């Protein structure tokens, strides 16, 4: 195989990893949206997937990072992070739901949604990172 076909084959595999991971994450997000109802107009299902997805990406990226104890190939990282986590979480649904709250005159709930979402997403990714760095520092393999 020449270098050119080898690298385009590699790129095709990475695209397939993202497509399949994204599909799995999106189906999981859809199932969560069927299970969790909104609370007084507050879009809980979207908040739930975005918090848990942020936690997982923070945890996984640190655990499989340069100092991590989990060895992961580029393909596996693309599959889990760009694919599963990327497909599972969604910024567009958050934007539309917030816009609809504003449009419906529920201004307080809309701003509450923005504040609670941004803070909890960031805390979740940080906690995931923190937990994985603890695990990375444990003795033994």
């Amino acid at each position, binding site marked *: 195989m020449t270098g050119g076909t080898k690298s385009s084959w590699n790129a095709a595999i990475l695209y397939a990893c993202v497509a399949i991971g994204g*599909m799995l994450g*999106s189906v999981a997000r859809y199932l969560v949206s069927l299970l969790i109802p909104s609370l007084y107009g507050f879009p809980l299902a979207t908040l739930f997937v975005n918090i848990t997805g942020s936690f997982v990406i923070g945890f996984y990226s640190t655990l499989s990072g340069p100092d991590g104890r989990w060895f992961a190939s580029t393909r596996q990282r693309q599959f889990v992070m760009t694919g599963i986590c990327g497909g599972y979480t969604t*910024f567009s649904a958050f*934007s539309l739901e917030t816009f609809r709250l504003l449009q419906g005159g529920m201004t307080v709930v809309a701003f509450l949604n923005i504040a609670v979402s941004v803070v909890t997403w*960031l805390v979740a990714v940080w906690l995931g990172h923190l937990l994985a760095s603890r695990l990375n520092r444990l003795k033994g393999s």
Partner: protein
Amino acid sequence: MRKDISRVISGLFSVVLGSMLGGVARYFVSGFVARRVGETFPWGTLFVNASGAFLIGILGALAQDDTSIFSSPDPWLFGVTGFLGCYTTVSSFSLQSLNLAREGERSRAAGYVGLSVVLCLAAVALGFATAGLLK
């Protein structure tokens, strides 16, 4: 009962199809933008999230019209839950914000968070208004 099951299956199929396209589109677009504009600031993800918000504004406005195809379940599940849901992402946004903050780039991290929220909400409103003009 049988009708319910076939509805669930066609709904899942719509999400599967839309999300595979959305994931591939995100990977391509965010990589393309990042290579063009530079990778010191997460422009790729910002572009993906803002453009996805614009599109969801259009589809959200169309869905309010009963004669639009987006007011029926499967096209909505394909286009919004599947494609746009997978095209846009919060997990990368969170991770990039955390990484900027950990690298000591606090003002960039705060700028990224603020810009993402403001641009995406403005993009939804713009999409909504655009769909209104097209009607």
